[in-house]
């Protein structure tokens, strides 16, 4: 990959993060929403052992729902004032655009996951263990990369015109199944939920990595076509 393309991707990522720092939508809206989802799960499932056992899955469900909002937000700033067209007219390569948007989304999701993991510890009684920290971090990073790539592909499509936002959950949720399954099992192994050994989590990290690479590469190739209208 050329240095110019990487430089453009980095600038787009920095631009997105700067917009986020100034508007604080993630902090003021998405984070409270995801926290609320975690609380609402407790209402639905009741307190006691169920929450502790289901904590990893519930946390990743909250991440998935929040990803949908974050992706919408990420592309709403591009469609407003025709920013996406301006970027394309400026000659920004679609691959750089894809990588930049996905990288910014990944940074935002990592921040979100860190907070939600803390909430899972506080609200659901999930206890991290020292030997599972590396697995926990690797799972979170690989799952985030996959989600960010997936969100960017379909976010680009949904940003193409009015009324397309409702398509986003329909397109993302079925194909996000590997992330939800893999990340949940990975975090379960890291936390030792149901006496799972740490070693049982690594195959799931493998799955998450393959998913991130496959979706990332196909997304980089497809993004130009998806945003062209």
């Amino acid at each position, binding site marked *: 990959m050329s240095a110019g393309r990487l430089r453009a991707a980095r600038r787009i990522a920095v631009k997105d993060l700067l917009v986020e720092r100034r508007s604080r939508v993630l902090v003021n809206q998405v984070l409270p929403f995801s926290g609320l989802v975690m609380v609402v799960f407790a209402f639905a499932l009741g307190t006691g052992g169920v929450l502790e056992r289901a904590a990893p899955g519930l946390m990743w469900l909250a991440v998935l729902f929040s990803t949908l909002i974050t992706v919408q937000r990420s592309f709403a700033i591009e469609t407003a004032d025709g920013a996406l067209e301006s970027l394309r007219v400026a000659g920004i390569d679609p691959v750089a655009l894809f990588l930049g948007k996905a990288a910014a989304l990944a940074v935002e999701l990592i921040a979100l996951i860190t907070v939600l993991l803390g909430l899972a510890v506080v609200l659901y009684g999930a206890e991290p263990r020292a030997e599972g920290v590396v697995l926990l971090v690797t799972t979170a990073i690989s799952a985030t990369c996959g989600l960010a790539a997936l969100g960017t592909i379909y976010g680009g499509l949904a940003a193409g015109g009015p009324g397309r936002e409702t398509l986003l959950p329909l397109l993302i949720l079925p*194909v996000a*199944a590997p992330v939800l399954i893999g990340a949940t099992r990975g975090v379960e192994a890291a936390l030792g939920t149901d006496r799972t050994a740490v070693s049982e989590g690594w195959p799931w990290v493998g799955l998450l990595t393959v998913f991130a690479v496959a979706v990332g590469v196909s997304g980089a190739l497809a993004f130009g076509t998806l945003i062209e209208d």
Partner: protein
Amino acid sequence: MTPTTSPQPTARRATGTRATRVLGIVTLVMLGWLLLFGLVLSPADIDQGDAVRIMYVHVPTVWLAYLAFIVTAVCSGLYLFGRRHSLGFDRVAGASAEIGVVFMALTLISGSLWGRITWGVYWQWDARLTTTALLFVTYIGYLAVRGLEGTRERRARRSAVIGLLAVVEIPLVHWSVRLWRSLHQEATILDTDLDVDIDGLMLFTLFSGVVAFTLLFVWLLLHRTRTIALDDLLASRGLDRAIAERRSEVTSSGSIGGGS
């Protein structure tokens, strides 16, 4: 709605030809044949009783749905990477996906009824069922993308990309769900050691079902592809007509403007 200004009459543009009519009749005969063998001539199963007859619809519909999605993927690729970017491939891809979604729904319904009788529950969270359900929703998404506004070329490019992305994503979904859990009975006929342990007449009925439903797929695909082509034709004629009307308006108002 009929474009009366069009120089060509549209009444003759039906979707049927002699070939499709012959195919339709053969399909009907095969479906009748399947009913005869499936409901009357084939024996009831020792364990499952008459419930096994659901198999003669369930297996062909799932085969057909997968065939339809493969056709969609191949035609998406042919459209996107073909030299001429022929819209014909896009129409076949769209028509095939629609048929695939309908037959996947029938598969899920017949499968859950069969499951209720044999397993005691409508739904089992096993790998094949879960992947099938996710595949179904994925192609509903594909059809939703096809329904987005834009020119035919944009629709074709966009949906071809989504159709090909599904090819990358579906194996990953299947792999993850299979790792998650697998309870489904192994494929009886397509066993790797080719040791077919199914009654001869039941097997024959099953193959009759596969042939009948494959013919039905081809028949539906031909008609639906032609309907989409006619829809496109109607849309472009409608546009031509609107442009012609607007031009005539401009010409008449222009002459008034010029006179004042």
